[in-house]
């Protein structure tokens, strides 16, 4: 410190504020008052005569509304000949609807200040719109056109097909995208509803045509089994009136049952799948296998387990690979919440030269969580992180919508979060160890590495953690 600064600091000691603060004890963190009581916004539901479930959450702080429509039209429904059809159909909803052209739809959304989105995951399709309250009616008119009256004009199908073909080319440059496609392809296999690429393949894209899209839409976009969630500055009565006027005429029709294939077996033995990316500065790592369904009663224990292993910044994987070793910018893990068995995955992008060392640390942590009891302070921290952080998730309309959307998507009880804190707090160290042993199985991991083979292969081989198998950018065998 410079002399001038010291003098100034001494002068300031004469001020009363300083004397007060001089009493502060910095040797230990302050004891905190009890956490605030959980106050969650209430969700109210009603069902329209055509079977559409309407869920409304009133939040009046800011004059905005978030609307989400969940439709049972996910990519798990893709015909085996048409991987990518569900996501393509969702994209096509916006390319002309009702009396509006594709450009009109985009122009109207922007003019209303509305963020309009349509997308599909494996488990379902969704349409969403987020808009200032005073433009809600016009936004819902647009939204209803998009969902109920898509045009699927041949010219627009061709346009989006060509765009998607180019995007698939671009995707090959992005190692994280490559890993995200290869990992499920390897874990589930191509025959499973979760095993194909969400956005399809080059050849399937080339075959996309109006008939297939219209048929997929006509089969799966039905009000029965769909859920409309409206969160924000609107009353239940208004929401109901607005929704009924626009979605009441949506025609119901039986939707085929969601696929229920047998759970794919875990790998016969731990295997490393290497996807070559010459010149890559990092290796993208995905380690895991098939896991539980979202609705398992073990989910609360799994949330605690994952928070300890890789769900938060101070979780073991990140502390080890990032904060202790500096191999990565971040290492995490997840049990994917899915209708069918989701996957457990541990992941990071690690510096090329430390790819083998990183795998050693990954495996060490994923074995340790099974073999050793979790120390009580670590368990308490994980539970506190999950429970005390809950109110913040309901601060914004988008945040609250995401939380309630999860309940609707998986058919979980709508009072789920009222009981959430008690359920998490009831989890014991023994529970965590039990689910770790049941749902994390290092002997049967699929280890997917996208990186520079010439730099990393020898090191991985020397680990002796399983055979190395080479795969292409789609996770498929190299012919």
């Amino acid at each position, binding site marked *: 410190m410079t002399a001038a600064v010291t003098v100034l600091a001494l002068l300031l000691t004469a001020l009363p504020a300083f004397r007060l603060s001089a009493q502060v004890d910095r040797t230990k963190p302050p004891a905190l008052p009890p956490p605030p009581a959980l106050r969650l916004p209430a969700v109210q539901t009603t069902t329209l005569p055509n079977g559409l479930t309407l869920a409304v959450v009133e939040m009046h702080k800011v004059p905005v509304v978030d609307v989400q429509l969940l439709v049972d039209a996910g990519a798990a429904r893709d015909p085996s000949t048409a991987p990518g059809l569900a996501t393509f159909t969702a994209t096509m909803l916006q390319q002309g609807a009702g009396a509006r052209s594709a450009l009109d739809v985009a122009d109207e959304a922007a003019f209303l200040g509305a963020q309009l989105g349509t997308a599909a995951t494996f488990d379902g399709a969704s349409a969403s719109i987020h808009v200032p309250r005073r433009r809600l009616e016009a936004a819902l008119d647009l939204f209803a056109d998009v969902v109920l009256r898509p045009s699927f004009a041949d010219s627009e199908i061709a346009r989006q097909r060509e765009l998607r073909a180019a995007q698939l080319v671009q995707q090959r440059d992005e190692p994280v995208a490559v890993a995200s496609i290869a990992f499920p392809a390897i874990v589930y296999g191509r025959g499973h509803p979760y095993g194909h690429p969400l956005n399809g393949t080059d050849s399937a894209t080339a075959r996309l045509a109006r008939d297939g899209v219209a048929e997929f839409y006509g089969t799966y976009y039905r009000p029965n089994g769909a859920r409309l969630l409206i969160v924000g500055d609107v009353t239940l009565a208004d929401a109901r009136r607005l929704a009924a006027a626009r979605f009441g005429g949506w025609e119901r029709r039986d939707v085929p049952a969601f696929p229920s294939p047998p759970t794919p077996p875990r790998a016969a033995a731990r295997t490393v799948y290497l996807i070559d990316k010459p010149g890559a500065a990092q290796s993208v790592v995905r380690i895991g296998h098939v896991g539980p369904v979202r609705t398992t009663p073990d989910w609360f224990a799994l949330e605690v387990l994952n928070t300890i292993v890789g769900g938060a910044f101070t979780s073991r994987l990140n502390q080890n690979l990032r904060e202790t070793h*500096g191999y990565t910018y971040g290492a995490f893990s997840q049990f994917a919440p899915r209708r069918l068995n989701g996957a457990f995955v541990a992941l990071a992008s690690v510096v090329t030269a430390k790819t083998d060392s990183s795998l050693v640390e990954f495996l060490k942590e994923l074995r340790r969580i099974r073999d050793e009891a979790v120390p009580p302070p670590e368990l308490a921290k994980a539970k506190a992180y999950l429970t005390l952080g809950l109110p913040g998730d309901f601060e914004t309309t988008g945040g609250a919508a995401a939380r309630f959307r999860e309940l609707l998507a998986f058919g979980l009880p709508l009072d789920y979060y009222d009981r959430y804190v008690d359920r998490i707090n009831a989890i014991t160290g023994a529970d965590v160890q039990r689910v770790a042993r049941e749902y994390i199985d290092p002997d049967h991991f699929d280890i997917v590495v996208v990186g520079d083979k010439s730099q990393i292969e020898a090191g991985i081989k020397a680990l002796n953690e399983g055979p190395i198998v080479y795969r292409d950018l789609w996770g498929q065998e190299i012919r």
Partner: protein
Amino acid sequence: MMARIATATAVVFGLLCARPPVPLSAQSLRVPYQTFTLPNGLQVIVHEDHSVPVVAVNTWYHVGSSDEKPGRTGFAHLFEHIMFMGSQHVQTGEFDRLLEAAGADNNGSTSEDRTNYYEDGPANALPLMLYLDADRMGFLLPEMTAEKVDLQRGVVQNERRQSYENRPYGLAEENILERLYPASHPYHWPVIGSMADLQAASLEDVRQFFQKYYTPNNATLAIAGDITARDARQLVERYFGDIPRGPAVTRTPPPPVPVAGVVGAVLEDRVQLPRVYDAWHTVKAFSADDATLDVLANVLAGGRSSRLYRRLVYELQIATDVVAFQDGGRIDGKFEVYATARPGHDLGELQRVIDEELRKLADQAPTPREVERAQNTVEAQFLSRMERVGGFGGKADQLNFYNYFVGTPDYFQKDLERYARVTPAAVQRAVQTYLTGGHRVVLSVVPQGKPELAVKEGVTP
């Protein structure tokens, strides 16, 4: 902007906010606050919002990559990482552990102009957040070691690999900056810095940087959420009151940015599809034409009904995407357009269309609807930002932002009004003034071994 922990892709392109022609249900955007300054110079801004029982603590240090010395690019951001490595009374790792055990999250980020840190969590955790922030402001150096610096150096170098070197087109930005600004200009290098400079950073650099910039008089602290201003003030006085004031920070004015002709450059990258970047020197944040250039960016490439998207992606189908944005910093600004070619198309084709569209806008103002659409879009973004007290871009962060950039924390409504005043004629003038003629960088990023796909020399709009 570099963040300590990876976040979902931040929407940094596009507009801040706008006021529609019709007033917003006669409701103006207000974020009431109280402010006070401790004797050591720490300015504190407190905003009460009792809607949800959470609190956000947001600290801005008025130092960024533009303050770095030659040979130490990336240091401000590396230092941000080091701020989480423990301090005299908080052991390494405890900062994060204590916050998570209280149900709180935290992060930090560095830009050219400032470094910010936040903690968000349940309202009862406020004393802990302030205790931790005060300890690293007042007592960072006693426990600082070369090992801590080495460790975060490794993390940051991996951040550079993950976000730049191993990401397609990730090295474009630094190639633009070094051509747009002269070597002596503080925006000449990227926030992440170079690998070599990161490697060179020493413990002594950490000491000097801390003593010069991480002082209470070079910081502002915003607290927002379910707390009372009185409690907040007491706690701040308790934890920050005895931290000594540091030397005043002085900065020399940046050198002028030379106005020359078109600077063409070609970068070969591990990509399948070539991409062209156009970058112009424009104006700094909040100067007269800054909001106008935001609206122009929206007219050009904001959404699928924008001019460039319609031409390049929708009608001609020669590009997969197009992006435009005005990036106004505290001391300077730039405007960028970039577009990625589809297979079988070269960048000259894209560049010709971009130039054509710019010329059209220079010749004839956009329609009133195009401007209104941009204004409505940004008004909605602005409203949504009012929902959150914490995080990057939440109310606490925004109070600090306005306070540093314009000197008024509750500048929300005034900022909105900047956009309301933008007219079609002003957008046309902005194109004429900034985007036609003068200094422009045209960077072609092409697949390795395919320089023939680049824009040829001599393009002029």
